[in-house]
């Protein structure tokens, strides 16, 4: 029974709960059994809320018994990355500086999940303040990849992807500043969507790189990503960068999901794909073959500035981070050093003791590139290159409906392999960063396995605010194969 239940997608589970065939309480209990079984080895969660989740589940079941209206995620157990604020537990950002922080409000996405009657089971691990590509920068715990416990789950939303892959929730939210949803989704064999910048409210998301951050779903199927996007997408008065629905209407992303878009033309950048390891190239090549067999045209294009995206990103994101993280001052909330000698030390010692190495490194880099004498050479230059990168996308989308490429040049790497060389770690984001710089939506979907039986992700990118089409394109492929149904040996 429990296996059968856990194999249901969010959509199927929600429908079963709505029809009274399954109780939300049963689904929630099953998820907590999974957590008890696998959390000790995977380490996906920073906190879980069993009592509260069961209470929520009971309330949903009760609504259904009484025939009251229910939400789009009624009774479905989901997890959220621990950089989104909640009022019913801590919001740590996997940082010692926020270890005991209890937010006075819920993030907009949390409000939306609750309004849709989702059951929130816990908060997932991440690289501290979402800075990293392996979740190894978490200041609070270690998460491993359910497919191979000696490897990283990817990052920074590694806890969300690992929890979904190990069936310790039915879906999760992540955040993506330079690939932090897509890369862990790819490493853990799940679907992960970074929506268009401005599609989902960032209110209550702890800021890292504000012009790049975006919240999105991590799920097992494309349909579940569509379902969750239906719940979280839309304008929010409290986020002035969330886009007006008059300018970019939100649609029902599930409605036409199974209809392949007409006249589809895929752009690929051959020189870019050559940078990936052989098994990844092979899987991507085979995925493109699936599209070709469906009668889709594939055209070779160039994106001459794509290769500059990492350099531009690590100047822009760190500059924004250095400003955003200035708020951790040891005064208003968060960690304060126990015995400061003066008020300056309240700042400088609290921050030194509270932040981990990668966060300090990025604050330092960002402060340096914004400092007098270096601003033009680094920060301004990076913003100009950002414009060129966006121009590459504009040009690509004049001739094609979407661009496809790998999510990551490699599959999941070994724990510890890159942690002492920050630049090598940054270079693993080569395919994902450009979407954040240009603001366009991008998805990672499972497209096979390498020779070590580790999942490979296919990345699909489309123009801003065309998530509906992006998901239909992804679904076309998903329908033709079974990759998304494979389970890690750990949980078989």
């Amino acid at each position, binding site marked *: 029974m429990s296996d059968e239940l856990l194999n249901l997608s969010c959509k199927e589970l929600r429908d079963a709960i709505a029809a009274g065939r399954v109780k939300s309480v049963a689904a929630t209990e099953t998820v907590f059994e999974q957590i008890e079984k696998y959390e000790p080895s995977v380490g996906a969660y920073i906190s879980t809320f069993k009592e509260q989740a069961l209470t929520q589940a009971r309330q949903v079941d009760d609504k259904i018994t009484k025939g009251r209206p229910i939400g789009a995620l009624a009774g479905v157990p989901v997890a959220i990355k621990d950089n989104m604020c909640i009022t019913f537990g801590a919001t740590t950002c996997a940082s010692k500086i926020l270890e*005991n*922080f*209890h937010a*006075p*409000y819920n993030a907009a996405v949390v409000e939306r999940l609750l309004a849709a009657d989702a059951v929130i089971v816990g908060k997932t691990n991440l690289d501290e303040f979402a800075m990293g590509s392996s979740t190894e920068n978490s200041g609070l715990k270690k998460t491993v990849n359910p497919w191979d416990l000696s490897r990283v789950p990817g990052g920074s939303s590694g806890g969300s992807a690992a929890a979904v892959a190990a069936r310790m929730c039915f879906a999760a939210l992540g955040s993506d500043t330079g690939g932090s949803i897509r890369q862990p989704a790819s490493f853990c064999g799940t679907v992960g969507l970074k929506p268009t*910048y*401005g599609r989902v409210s960032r209110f209550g998301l702890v800021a890292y790189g504000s*012009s790049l951050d975006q919240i999105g779903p991590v799920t097992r199927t494309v349909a579940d990503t569509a379902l969750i996007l239906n719940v979280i997408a839309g304008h929010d*008065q409290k986020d*002035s*960068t969330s*886009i007006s629905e008059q*300018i970019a209407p939100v649609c029902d992303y599930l409605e036409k999901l199974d209809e392949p878009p007409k006249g589809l033309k895929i752009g690929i950048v051959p020189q870019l794909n050559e940078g990936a390891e052989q098994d990844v190239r092979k899987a991507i090549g085979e995925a493109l073959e699936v599209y070709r067999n469906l009668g889709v045209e594939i055209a070779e294009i160039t994106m001459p*500035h794509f290769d*500059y995206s*990492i*350099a*531009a990103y*690590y*100047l822009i994101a760190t500059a924004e981070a250095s400003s955003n993280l*200035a708020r951790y*001052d*040891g*005064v*208003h*909330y*968060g*960690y*304060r050093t126990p015995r*400061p000698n*003066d*008020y300056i030390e309240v*700042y*400088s010692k609290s*921050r*030194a003791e509270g*932040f981990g*190495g990668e966060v*300090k*490194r990025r*604050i*330092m*880099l960002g*402060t*340096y590139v914004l*400092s007098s004498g270096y601003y033009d050479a*680094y920060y*301004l*230059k*990076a*913003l*100009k*290159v950002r*414009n060129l990168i966006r121009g590459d996308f504009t040009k690509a989308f004049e001739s094609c409906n979407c661009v496809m490429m790998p999510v990551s040049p490699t599959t999941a790497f070994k724990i510890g392999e890159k942690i002492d060389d*920050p*630049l090598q770690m940054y270079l693993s984001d080569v395919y994902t960063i450009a979407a954040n*710089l*240009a*603001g366009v939506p991008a998805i990672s979907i499972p497209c096979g396995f390498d020779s070590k039986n580790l999942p490979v992700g296919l990345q699909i990118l489309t123009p*801003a605010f065309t998530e509906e089409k992006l998901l239909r394109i992804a679904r076309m492929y998903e329908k033709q194969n079974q990759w998304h149904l494979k389970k890690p040996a750990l949980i078989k």
Partner: protein
Amino acid sequence: MKNIINEKQVRAVAKLSRLDLTDAEVEVFSRQLSSILEYVEKLNKLDTANVEPLAHCLPVSNVFREDKIKESLGVEKTLANAPQRDGEFFKVPKILDDSSGA
């Protein structure tokens, strides 16, 4: 090879960032930040003389709303996470020096 950002500069940036770094951290950051800055030099291969900087991807400028009074968090919720408080205030070490006679 010479570090692009030397230890003295690292200390200056650490001061601006309000981060008390250890000597070991200063040494490591000088090396690591230099290698990152060396990598980003590649941006200089691009001619951007006629390119506008792009700080933001969306076509939004100022966002206005009605200036209406709404409910705020209130003192208790605001102070709930304070590392130290004194009644209705955040408590911090003394900032002014008594000896100045001010």
